[in-house]
């Protein structure tokens, strides 16, 4: 479970950097947030029968969770929200390519 979370963090954190959140502190926190949210998401998906709608709803919750957690160290803004949506979309697509 942790390896998938680390892989996701490895995909999303550089994207977060590319979207303009360049401070080292931001990146460390964001990587941590990614690991937490992915441990929760993958732990949940492991316990249920896979359905596409569940995956999509779960991803929406992950975006909201990551945005909420990001507000602990970055001022909330539309840019932050868009960045989180984009990084999660990217990791979701990449994850689907890798695992399916």
């Amino acid at each position, binding site marked *: *479970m*942790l390896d998938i979370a680390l892989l996701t963090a490895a995909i999303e954190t550089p994207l977060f950097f590319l979207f303009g959140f360049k*401070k080292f*502190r931001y990146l460390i926190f964001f990587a941590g947030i990614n690991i*937490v949210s992915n*441990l*929760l*998401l993958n*732990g*949940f998906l492991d*316990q*249920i029968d896979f359905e596409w709608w569940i995956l999509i709803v779960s991803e929406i*919750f992950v975006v*909201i*969770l990551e945005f*909420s*957690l990001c*507000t*602990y*160290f*970055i*001022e909330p803004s539309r840019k932050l929200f868009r960045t989180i949506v984009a990084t999660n979309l990217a990791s979701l697509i990449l994850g689907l390519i890798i695992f399916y």
Partner: protein
Amino acid sequence: MILAIQTLQHFAVDGICAANLARYAIDEEFFDQIVLYFGIYNLIAFGTQWLMGLAIDRKFIGIKIAFGISIATLTLGSIQSLGIMNQAILLGIGNSIFHVAGGSLVLNRYQTFKELGIFVSSGAIGLALGLNGIVGFEIFLPLYWALTILFLKRFHGELELPIQTESIQREDPKTLAMLICAILLLSCIVLRGFGRGVPTEFVMLFPCVLAIGKSLGGFVCDRFGFRRTILAILLIGTVAIQFEGLAPILILTLALNMTMPLTLRLVHWCNPKFPGMMFGLAAGCLLPGAFFHESIPPQVTVTIQFLTLFIAGYLIQKFAREDFDARYRTSYSGN
């Protein structure tokens, strides 16, 4: 002192109800009958609290009268010859009215979280001692009598406090925002109601963890602030879920129960003129968990609890109480 007595009263009241129901269950040979009467008790004890609370808030029932009714009903409910149906109803009423009377007093007297955590924590211990037959109603009932007499004599003049709304509420709280906030918080409580322990050889282990969690939540919130507390609960819960065994389950249970004083206080702030009703509504949200034994993945519970509390806290700070958790405004100052 008043809080200590109320906490002990809570311990005794839950103990009386549990001990009487356990006394019946031991002699009953049909399991469905036990489920039925426990269900009736739960329905009255949890489901009527909002109504009792409203009656207390509206001054239809005074606090002293409420304690009097609880003593009378709990005493009558302990008489086995009345029959289990009457006992379940009387115990349910006594339990319900005590909780809202005690809860609204604590909500009104204090403006911080720890007192609520302490008050609610002792119930789990009394419940477990009574249900497991470790302590009988013969101990709990005189204890409740003694505590209530002491309480009413000692704090006679302090019980009808004016409801403190001025210091906690903006003049123009946004009703819709507070409604959304209340729904979020109540759904968080519903979710927590589905939490279950696991069977262990130590029957008091989980009740003690529940009690510690509830108390700890209030202290941590007062010391470190609301936002940091819910973050800590999320992180502790996430780590605990990754491991198997009794210890991680205990840690997860502890973390999830730390939210209890937080939800109660915020639910009160959604509608501070009705502390009894809001306390009762929160208690009523435990009913689904008492009747439906669905298993919810802990990841869902941890995530939804965090999100509902986070959003509710934001709404409270923005629309009702500007001084709530200064860290909402200063958390970015170091960037």
